């Protein structure tokens, strides 16, 4: 018994540690007022839970969780006063608001214009069919702290038809959002990944350029828009940098050039790129040819000879030559974006389906101010679109590409190194980011002390990690965590992601612990560091984790069942059916306070095992566990 109980203790402590970690990763700086945090976190959980049951769409739920967690974390940074108030409100009422409402209010309160807020909502609606039903959801968020940053909830469609919702703040560029998505999805991070906006009504679509401000672009959408954002790979995005010869050397040498094009070696490509993008001014590919132009307001298409210049698109007026002096300006790029047109053959009777469209980003409906052009083949289309982007964005495009390459390179290197290591590398990227984006704008005071602690903790965590997981035990949750994750036999992908996510705030565990150990009077519920990390779990890409798995904090759940079962099983009453537990929870959730606890479901199951051993575990941890237990039991009671 002793041994096994120890084992279990250990496991629990690890689990706890991880939870702490996760929690902290969410809102490290929030810790000082520990009370506020927990409640919210719980909420998040409950949300996930509920939705799960209701919608059966695990992925989305997870998204929601993550979202909420994000949101909460951000907000929690606000003044303590607010927090307390929130807490109170939390305890007193949980039912009224719908998820939507809460989010909306969150966004709106964050200082965003009505329009934007609306966008957020609408997106949300798309995603979450059931949200409104969930009473638990009403976050205490509404009293928005003095938030300098406006944020938006953005639903991103993945290429497997799932969706993910993210918080995007007004400073984030497409690149940041992509990085964020990389972290959440485990994709290979190659340079072709892009955010892609689609206007179903106009049947046009385009990439976000990596330097574009996402919120700004979205703020042009109307309230009731059907526009969508996709996260997918498009090789066209940086095609020019992979095969510059196709854009810069095409057409020049007639037939033989085609052969040479394919043969161009890396070195030549490089020098071609350098020549084109690194000079005092960039070189826009020479591009000219006959295109079809849709006449304003009519259905007919007229063939004209167009030329691309750095200053805009020109055409050759009737009866004139194509010398510079005769050209007439068709459009300049300052105020327009370029889009691909899809199926315009059907929609507008275009001669071919290789269309591109130029319009002011704010125009959302059909209008005479939208210019439609149609090419003979896809190669020409791609050349024009790329050429226009080069003319419009200039060197920025190349800078974007280089950043993307750097990112991809880093990612691939790390993934090669295996999961454990991956965590470490990820740190720098995630760590700083959370550090900068969130704290910067939001953390009111505590920051300094906290950050100091954090740093120390971080150091600690890192070193311990390095040393070896073996050392880890009750005392240092962080240590065990690392080893466990890999061991836990999770589906390979998740570990990586998770580790990287958490790694961002390795310090947190210590802190959480510390506070916890300190004997915080906080009610157990509050106390539980809600595993905010859910976001990481929700890998859209990971097919393996079916919804079931996802529900519980993925970290523990998936693998645990098998491995833990053996160990824990002997001593503990079989953990309550992990998946089922959550399901019931939602209903009771409406009951409110308990719901908070209920959220934990994923975790709780294991906790339950603990109850038997509390004695064995170390003080601080024990407290935790007992708290957990209590919470669980409460919840169960509710459920049953």
């Amino acid at each position, binding site marked *: 018994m002793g041994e096994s109980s120890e084992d279990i203790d250990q496991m629990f402590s690890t689990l706890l540690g991880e939870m702490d970690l996760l929690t902290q990763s969410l809102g490290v700086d929030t810790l000082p007022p520990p009370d506020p945090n927990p409640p919210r976190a719980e909420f998040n959980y409950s949300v996930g839970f509920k939705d799960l049951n209701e919608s059966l769409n695990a992925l989305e739920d997870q998204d929601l969780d993550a979202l909420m967690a994000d949101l909460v974390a951000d907000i929690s940074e606000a003044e303590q006063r607010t927090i307390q108030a929130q807490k109170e409100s939390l305890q007193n009422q949980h039912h009224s608001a719908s998820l939507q409402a809460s989010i909306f209010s969150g966004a709106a309160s964050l200082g965003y214009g009505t329009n934007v807020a609306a966008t957020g909502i609408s997106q949300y609606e798309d995603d979450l069919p059931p949200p409104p039903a969930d009473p638990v959801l009403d976050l205490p968020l509404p009293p928005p702290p003095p938030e300098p940053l406006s944020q938006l909830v953005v639903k991103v469609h993945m290429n497997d038809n799932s969706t993910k919702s993210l918080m995007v703040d007004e400073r984030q560029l497409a690149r940041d959002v992509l990085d964020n998505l990389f972290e959440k999805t485990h994709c290979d991070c190659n340079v072709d990944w892009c955010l892609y906006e689609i206007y179903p009504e106009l049947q046009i679509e385009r990439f976000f350029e990596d330097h574009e401000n996402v919120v700004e672009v979205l703020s042009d959408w109307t309230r009731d828009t059907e526009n969508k954002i996709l996260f997918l790979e498009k090789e066209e995005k940086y095609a020019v940098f992979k095969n510059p010869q196709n854009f810069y050397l095409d057409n020049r*040498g007639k037939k*033989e050039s085609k052969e040479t094009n394919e043969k161009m070696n890396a070195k030549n490509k490089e*020098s071609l790129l350098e*020549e084109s993008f690194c000079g005092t001014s960039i070189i826009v590919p020479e591009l000219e040819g006959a295109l079809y132009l849709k006449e304003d307001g009519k259905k007919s298409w007229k063939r004209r000879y167009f030329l691309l210049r750095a200053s805009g698109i*020109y055409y050759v007026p009737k009866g004139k030559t194509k010398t510079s002096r005769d050209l007439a300006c068709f459009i300049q790029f300052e105020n327009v974006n370029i889009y691909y047109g899809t199926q315009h053959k059907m929609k507008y009777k275009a001669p071919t389906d290789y269309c591109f469209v130029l319009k002011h980003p704010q125009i959302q409906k059909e209008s005479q101010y939208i210019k439609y052009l149609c090419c003979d083949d896809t190669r020409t289309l791609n050349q024009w679109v790329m050429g226009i982007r080069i003319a419009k964005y200039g060197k920025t495009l190349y800078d974007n590409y280089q950043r993307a390459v750097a990112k991809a390179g880093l990612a691939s290197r790390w993934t090669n190194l295996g999961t454990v290591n991956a965590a470490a590398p990820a740190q720098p990227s995630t760590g700083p980011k959370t550090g900068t984006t969130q704290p910067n704008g939001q953390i009111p005071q505590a920051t300094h002390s906290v950050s100091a602690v954090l740093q120390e903790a971080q150091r600690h965590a890192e070193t311990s990690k390095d040393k070896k997981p073996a050392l880890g035990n009750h005392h240092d949750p962080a240590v065990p965590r690392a080893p466990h994750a890999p061991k836990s036999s999770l589906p390979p992908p998740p570990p990586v992601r998770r580790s990287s996510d958490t790694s961002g705030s390795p310090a947190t565990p210590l802190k959480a612990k510390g506070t916890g150990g300190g004997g915080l009077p906080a009610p157990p519920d509050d106390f539980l560091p809600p595993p905010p990390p859910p976001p990481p779990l929700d890998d859209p890409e990971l097919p393996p984790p079916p919804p079931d798995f996802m529900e519980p904090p993925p970290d523990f759940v998936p693998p645990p069942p098998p491995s833990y079962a053996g160990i824990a099983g002997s001593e503990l009453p079989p953990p309550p059916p992990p998946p089922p537990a959550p399901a019931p929870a939602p209903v009771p959730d409406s009951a409110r306070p308990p719901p908070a606890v209920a959220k934990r479901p994923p975790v709780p199951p294991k906790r339950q095992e603990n109850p038997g051993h509390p004695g064995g575990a170390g003080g601080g941890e024990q407290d935790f566990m007992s708290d957990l237990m209590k919470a669980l039991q409460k919840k169960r009671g509710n459920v049953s």
Partner: protein
Amino acid sequence: MAGMKTASGDYIDSSWELRVFVGEEDPEAESVTLRVTGESHIGGVLLKIVEQINRKQDWSDHAIWWEQKRQWLLQTHWTLDKYGILADARLFFGPQHRPVILRLPNRRALRLRASFSQPLFQAVAAICRLLSIRHPEELSLLRAPEKKEKKKKEKEPEEELYDLSKVVLAGGVAPALFRGMPAHFSDSAQTEACYHMLSRPQPPPDPLLLQRLPRPSSLSDKTQLHSRWLDSSRCLMQQGIKAGDALWLRFKYYSFFDLDPKPPLPPLQTDPVRLTQLYEQARWDLLLEEIDCTEEEMMVFAALQYHINKLSQSGEVGEPAGTDPGLDDLDVALSNLEVKLEGSAPTDVLDSLTTIPELKDHLRIFRPRKLTLKGYRQHWVVFKETTLSYYKSQDEAPGDPIQQLNLKGCEVVPDVNVSGQKFCIKLLVPSPEGMSEIYLRCQDEQQYARWMAGCRLASKGRTMADSSYTSEVQAILAFLSLQRTGSGGPGNHPHGPDASAEGLNPYGLVAPRFQRKFKAKQLTPRILEAHQNVAQLSLAEAQLRFIQAWQSLPDFGISYVMVRFKGSRKDEILGIANNRLIRIDLAVGDVVKTWRFSNMRQWNVNWDIRQVAIEFDEHINVAFSCVSASCRIVHEYIGGYIFLSTRERARGEELDEDLFLQLTGGHEAF
């Protein structure tokens, strides 16, 4: 030693008499006669000459020029035999540096001493060092074109000739900065003025002059210029240049290295001369239609010129800080304070900081719609932050406006006719449904300038609280006054002298073909429109922008030479750019074929039949003979561009001269 003779006076050594003329090539020159032998060293001969002349003077720059062989005898340790000099050699003992008149890219003339004995490459490098232009390898000298119009010599105004011929630069030392300019310029007021001429953009040319200047009317005209390039590997003397001749200094290779040094060294600080001269060359290229551009592009160029000129006239040239930067800071701080106090005098300081100014006024508004005959109607218009709202009357202002427009992202187009007292602002406001058009009609310039500036800022998402608001208003007013003077009076002398005096004649900013196409009053608003995008640039930034826009033109950087391809019966044009060769149809101007230098294996010149043969990858061979220019010019262009492509940032200014000469030199160079 030489000249040993017996008592009878017979020379017993093999000495002979050598006659050397003193001075520059001139049949009348005084001469000295020396006794020398074949073993005499040049150094000894020089010594003897000086002794014989017996005049106190600095002879250090003098050397012997052998006229028949067109060669300097610079190797003082060589013997006469080694040089092959016999008694019949016509030798001149003269200075190696002689004055020339240099026509700079900005069309100003400058007198300075150039080396007549070094290869041109080095001579140009020395000139550039004197003028403080970095990267001299990009420049070269051309012969001045022969002047045809001797007849109407009458009223050619005496132009100002700057003189740097007295300035001597110590070798090997990087010129230090003194009072914001290279030290050697700060010697006298005269040289200082010269530096200003070099480093500051010149005012726009007189439009009449512009129309008179020769412009290429066809591709073959454009080949003319390139036949005049001098050889880099031979000295000026060898190329028949005489003291006092006029030469053009131009950027020859369109591959400008490191033009925009990174932040720590703003271009203005490091080489204003280079940037300015390059800008001037680009400007004249455009004004004289050496390179074509579209109408829209011309407007941008014109706006930049206007802006650059304004800055340079107003002295905001980034006048280098005085010797005591501390004092300057203080001055700046004081003047800032002053401005602040003055500016906020009427209102509370805090107030002015926190409130965003609004505009409220009666304006006439017109919204074009289909099937509407309504014209302008008076409305009460309120412009707050970036939003424009209008009401039926002032009384209704607190209520709901008739319409409210957020101008963020909108297009603002001036529609102004000063002489007609028409001050309209056309706004194209984007909305999800498309663009809505609205016209605001102001009563006078003042009102127009304020509203216009507000609209422009709003279109960029900024409010009138933005610091640039006032300067924007001023810029608009200034431009309007320009329009009044430029095109104004009913008398309609667009090119009257006062026009150029008062401000600017827009005709001086555009190529002559646009002068024919537009009236000045049509031109001004378009330039004004383009100007709004560049109004905030500093002088150096604006020049750089100009150069970049120039570089972005499709025809940029192509030097044209008329050639005849092997196997072809007609002349064609060969375009040489920094990365490729282009075969162009002479009649139509179409590009027939392009070859890139990166695919080039080797090139050869057959000097006897004046043919250039080039081999590219995959066994593509091209051969042509040169018609309009000597094949060495083509050869040098190709070699020069290849040389330039070998430059690396790491090596800085250091030049591999041998490599350059190797790549560009002909057989006689070795």
